[in-house]
């Protein structure tokens, strides 16, 4: 039950980007191809989960006065590990994300979760929180990439999928993706920084609309239930 609730919070009701409105720099900067989006999302997911577990395991030892400094050191440690591993094993990803991999250190999602959640919760709960919040972040990145790539260059899965010699996944970022309509007809403005701002703005607006609507629905249902209950009492 609790895990289910955490899952819903991470992906929808308390989504790090769309609802908490944090960690937006990378969200707008790197979402030009699906390859970048999936790579960045999974990197953050791994770092977030590791940091969550370590922080919650050490929560009784960490003195309150210097907790932020210690969080930052732990986060920087994991970020460097992921950075080195990417450079060694998936160099294409490390090159195309560039400075945004080390910048995960100052991504507010990770330090925010450490401060708001892991300090007060058990290792297990923090582990799942890391996974679900990371998944929520990855989903937003993927949606952004798919929208920008499709409308911008008429493509799906750039860098990650190659269909030239049968369908296969490319980890070296060379896949041409699936061309849905010719790139010349794409609104290439979406590939520019402007596209990042516009797509994220629209996504958040859609999210606000959906949350508002579901809140209204809930309110209405409660009201009806209350009225029904009142009627019953009267009868």
């Amino acid at each position, binding site marked *: 039950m609790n895990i289910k609730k955490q899952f819903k919070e991470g992906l929808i009701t308390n989504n790090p980007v769309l609802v908490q409105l944090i960690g937006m720099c990378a969200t707008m900067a790197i979402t*030009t*191809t699906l390859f970048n989006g999936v790579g960045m999302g999974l990197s953050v997911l791994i770092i977030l989960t590791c940091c969550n577990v370590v922080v919650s395991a050490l929560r009784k*030892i*960490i*003195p309150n*006065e*210097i907790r932020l*400094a*210690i969080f930052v*050191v*732990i986060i*920087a*440690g994991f970020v*460097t*590990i992921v950075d*080195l*591993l990417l*450079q*060694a*094993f998936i*160099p294409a990803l490390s*090159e195309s994300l560039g400075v945004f991999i080390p910048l995960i250190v100052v991504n507010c999602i990770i330090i925010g979760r450490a401060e708001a959640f892991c300090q007060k919760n058990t290792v297990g709960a923090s582990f799942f929180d890391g996974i679900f919040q990371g998944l929520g972040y990855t989903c937003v990145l993927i949606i952004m990439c798919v929208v920008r790539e499709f409308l*911008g*260059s008429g493509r799906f899965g750039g860098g990650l999928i190659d269909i030239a010699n049968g369908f296969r996944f490319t980890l070296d970022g*060379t896949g*041409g993706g699936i061309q849905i309509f010719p*790139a*010349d007809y*794409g609104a*290439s403005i979406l*590939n*520019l920084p402007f596209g990042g701002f516009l797509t994220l703005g629209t996504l958040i607006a859609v999210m606000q609309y959906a949350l508002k609507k579901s809140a209204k629905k809930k309110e209405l249902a409660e009201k009806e239930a209350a009225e029904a209950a009142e009627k019953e009492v009267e009868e």
Partner: protein
Amino acid sequence: MKKILKLTFILFLICAVTAGILGGINELTYRRIEEQNRLKTVKAYSAVLPADDYEEIDFAAAGIPASIDKVTIDKISKAANGSGYVVESTFSGAQGNITMAVGVGSDLRCTGISIIKHSETSGLGANAASTAEVGVNFRAQFVGEGAGIALKKAGGNIDALSGATITSTAVTNAVAVSIKAVSMLG
């Protein structure tokens, strides 16, 4: 005072443990990272001028300036099979610096270009480096061009990338500079 010492000690301990772990990971990965970087260079070079090995030469000693026409020359390497030279240069594109390898054959004609690093706009200038058809076609135009290389609108043979005149001009200029530098080698 005792409290401050204790806090400093804890912080120091955590830093030390983290640094130690990172040292271990670095020890495990640095050879692979170096190898990956070397492979990348060889791959970029062999795409523009096929050879088994490349030998970097001291171009400053040959009297070639480090910068010609706003293009900085980083390295000039000689192909081991004597078919020509690869010039690695850095210049500014539309959004930032572009690093490019240009193969120049012994007949002073371009044998191919490969963009190693860039930060051009995705979908526009970045097409110059793309593996998609548009990028491959753009780069193929440079093969066989000589010292008089120029964009079509400047009277040459090179079609600019659509929407990326600045990038195309910069790349063409850098190819011309690379050919010039090799011709100065004699």
